[in-house]
């Protein structure tokens, strides 16, 4: 039996904790109590699963990718189709869980941070659905780059606050969301979008995302009567990966987390937190992060906005340290190649984030045996990336 993480101090081994301004210690305590109580309440569980089924479209499909398997000539490849979720990515699972919790706690206003806008859209969506007010913090640079998602959030009724501090990207939006929460914690619920942040967020988000792995496990056993030999997921903050991996932690399946190597992990332009970062504190949690010698957090780079984050969830740091999960890094170009290959062989345009997981799996599949199996978490659809893809592929297609 594995030790249950996080421990009572919110630690996953050496990582995690609550490195936050004193003002947030009360709200985090309140959140933790409400969460524990809710998760133990069958009524809450029922409501959460009811919304997932009747609103979000779960269970999402498990697709056997016959053509790509054949093309690569090795292991059988299965895709967990989080792209089929309402709003187009796994992000909604967590947003639903937290929104239900916020309602239960009597909070009528939610705060969210967003980079590419996926979590912002998911938050604005649940806010509309559950009648909550919603403020989304987004870097001014990202607002410029993701005009469409900004409009989508506004159409959903959310207020989008432009963050000009720092470089105006996700890290800064998160800082600003935390600051706003500090000042307004009385009646606001902060709906974090990944398994990051202070305890109990990493645990909570994981537990609202583990539906991915729970379903996959059941579906996989139905069609293959065996668990997958290897499971791949991309890692930004790490929520889709934790959600997928968690229910398999005690099994024999090899787990592979895939980070963004951007223009190469030997260049300064990447977001490969575990591959190249060092332990430190970011957004309230002790984990790995990208920083300079003085402990200043550095700007990450990835073509995929959802992986363009200098930290990573503390549970991943722990799984990295204990070698329970293998972490690899995949470049922009490799991800784009994998995206195109999947699109043209399976008729599925994945999110560029998800394409990182695909790329690593595709690299490895060919040298596996025909009776081995691979499960890849397709965390989201590529619709949001069309502008980027047009830029890159316009000449080719």
């Amino acid at each position, binding site marked *: 039996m594995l030790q249950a993480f996080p421990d009572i101090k919110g630690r996953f081994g050496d990582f995690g904790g609550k490195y936050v301004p*004193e003002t947030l210690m009360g709200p985090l305590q309140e959140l933790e109590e409400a969460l524990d109580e809710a998760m133990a309440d069958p009524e809450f569980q029922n409501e959460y699963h009811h919304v997932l089924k009747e609103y979000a479209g779960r269970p999402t499909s498990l697709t056997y990718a016959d053509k790509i398997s054949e093309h690569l000539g090795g292991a059988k490849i299965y895709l967990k189709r989080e792209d089929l979720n309402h709003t187009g990515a796994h992000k909604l699972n967590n947003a639903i869980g937290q929104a239900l919790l916020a309602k239960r706690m009597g909070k009528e206003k939610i705060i969210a941070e967003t980079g590419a806008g996926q979590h912002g859209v998911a938050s604005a969506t649940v806010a509309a659905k559950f009648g909550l007010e919603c403020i989304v913090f987004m870097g001014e640079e990202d607002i410029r780059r993701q005009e469409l998602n900004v409009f989508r959030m506004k159409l959903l009724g959310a207020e989008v606050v432009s963050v000009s501090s720092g470089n105006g990207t996700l890290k*800064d939006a998160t800082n600003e969301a935390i600051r706003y929460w500090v000042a307004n914690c009385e009646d606001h619920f902060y709906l974090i979008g990944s398994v990051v942040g202070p305890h109990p967020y990493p645990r909570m988000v994981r537990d609202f995302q583990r539906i991915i792995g729970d379903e996959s496990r059941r579906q996989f056993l139905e069609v293959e009567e065996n668990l997958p030999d290897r499971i791949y997921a991309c890692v930004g903050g790490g929520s889709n990966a934790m959600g997928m991996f968690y229910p398999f932690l005690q099994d024999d399946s090899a787990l592979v987390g895939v980070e963004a190597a951007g223009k190469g992990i030997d260049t300064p332009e990447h977001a490969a937190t575990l591959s190249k970062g060092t332990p430190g504190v970011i957004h309230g949690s002790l984990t790995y992060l990208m*920083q300079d010698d003085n402990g*200043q957090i550095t700007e990450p780079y990835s073509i995929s906005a959802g992986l363009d984050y200098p930290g990573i969830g503390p549970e991943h740091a722990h799984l990295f340290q204990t070698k329970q999960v293998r972490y690899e890094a995949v470049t922009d170009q490799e991800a784009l190649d994998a995206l195109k290959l999947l699109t043209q062989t399976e008729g599925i345009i994945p999110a560029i984030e998800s394409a990182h997981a695909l790329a690593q799996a595709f690299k490895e599949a060919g040298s596996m045996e025909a009776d081995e199996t691979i499960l890849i978490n397709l965390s989201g659809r590529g619709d949001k990336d069309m502008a980027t893809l047009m830029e890159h592929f316009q000449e080719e297609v």
Partner: protein
Amino acid sequence: MLTKTSFQGKLNKTENLFIPFVVAGDPSPEYTIEFALRLQEQGADVLELGVPYSDPLADGPTIQRAAKRALNAGMSLRKAIQLVPELRKHGVEIPVVIFTYYNPVLQIGHQDFFNLLEENGVEGVLIPDLPFEESEEVRNMAVKKDVEFISLVAPNSDTRIQQIAEHARGFLYCVSSLGVTGGSSGMSAEALTFIKKVKEHSQVPVAVGFGISTNEDVKLVREHADGVIIGSKIIRLIEAELDVIEKGQKEEALESFTKGIQELVRD
């Protein structure tokens, strides 16, 4: 019975404290020294020397801007600590508290960090994102090195107020949402209850800091607490001089800054 306030014996009063905050290196280390001297002249009892950080999530836009200026000027945690002997050389005698986020401390390492503080004669340290539950090791080291580890306490610290207050050293930083809505209204009932509760359990002076930006705020705080902490307002006074500093008109800048401080803290 304020037994835990010593700052290595340098703080000789426990009430009516004026605790200003500046960011080391904003806009340059030389000016930090000058501002510190002026603040001491104007009655500062302790200097909070802020270390600029890339992601200062407990700080508002004013201090963020200051941090950016200081980072651009090359400031770091190590350099900020090493600035303290310089301050001494130029005549700053009041205790200095290094205000830094936790991550830079982690990168240096707890042991080396405290060695550095000791070597450079720093009297205190405040880490805004290291709450009581995460700070045990650091607090213990601080005691060993005779460095005051300054704790923060907030109105919503709730059941933890007593615990934090009892362990407080140096002074206790009350993050108070003051409820100052205008000149006449005074402090909200909640704020008063909070300060009272903190004082009940604290063995060190209780200083209040949070959005204090007028002489009226200062007076109000003095009525109820042992000290007043002023940060953003001082940064704004510095910002107001940046143009003049840019032109190299140092004396004018400092004079004008000093006037601003006088106006802020006069009785």
